[in-house]
């Protein structure tokens, strides 16, 4: 069975600085999808970025980018120029090609310091 591990329960970053959130996963599949979701306090979870495993190029969405290392089964999220609004719980998720359900990590709470 697939598993997702987020080893950092909490991270802090200074406003305007860069922070990297780690995510590793375990799978025997060769094709799958990976996601980072963000949940601000008391608000709904929103998609930050997604990566298709067969694409070697790392996904990028504005200040958010990933470092996808397929062989190492690592999918870290880099947030550049951190803003106060980036403070949230971040969840890493895996989805097999053949199924719909997501497998999540335990989340990383990101604090942004002014």
């Amino acid at each position: 069975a697939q598993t997702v591990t987020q080893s950092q329960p909490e991270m802090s970053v200074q406003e305007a600085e860069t922070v990297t959130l780690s995510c590793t996963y375990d799978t025997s599949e060769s094709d799958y999808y990976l996601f980072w979701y963000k949940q601000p306090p008391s608000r709904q979870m929103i998609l930050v970025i997604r990566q298709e495993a067969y694409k070697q190029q790392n996904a990028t969405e504005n200040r958010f980018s990933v470092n996808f290392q397929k062989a190492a089964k690592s999918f870290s999220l880099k947030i550049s120029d951190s803003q106060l609004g980036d403070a949230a719980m971040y969840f890493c998720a895996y989805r097999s090609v053949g199924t719909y359900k997501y497998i999540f990590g335990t989340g990383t709470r990101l604090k942004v310091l002014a």
Partner: protein
Amino acid sequence: EAGVTQFPSHSVIEKGQTVTLRCDPISGHDNLYWYRRVMGKEIKFLLHFVKESKQDESGMPNNRFLAERTGGTYSTLKVQPAELEDSGVYFCASSHLTSGGDGTQYFGPGTRLTVL
């Protein structure tokens, strides 16, 4: 376009009582999912509807949990009778019905359930 909505946002009940959570998916989304996060742990899949049919209910903890999606629109998740270990945040998500693609799911804000 309205997002996924969930009601209530919070619910506090006594052990043994019944609670019903509601989810309204994004209009036009045939796939609807329920997930649960117990304090400090990962978000776990509960079940998946395609329209009104249960496609996968492998994550449902036990028969105290009953999910329905009459008419293929909104869904309810009933817990009866509630136990202490049912406390957590219940998330609903929806997605388009597609045979391919990444099947991105759009989540609601969750219902925080506390069983005393």
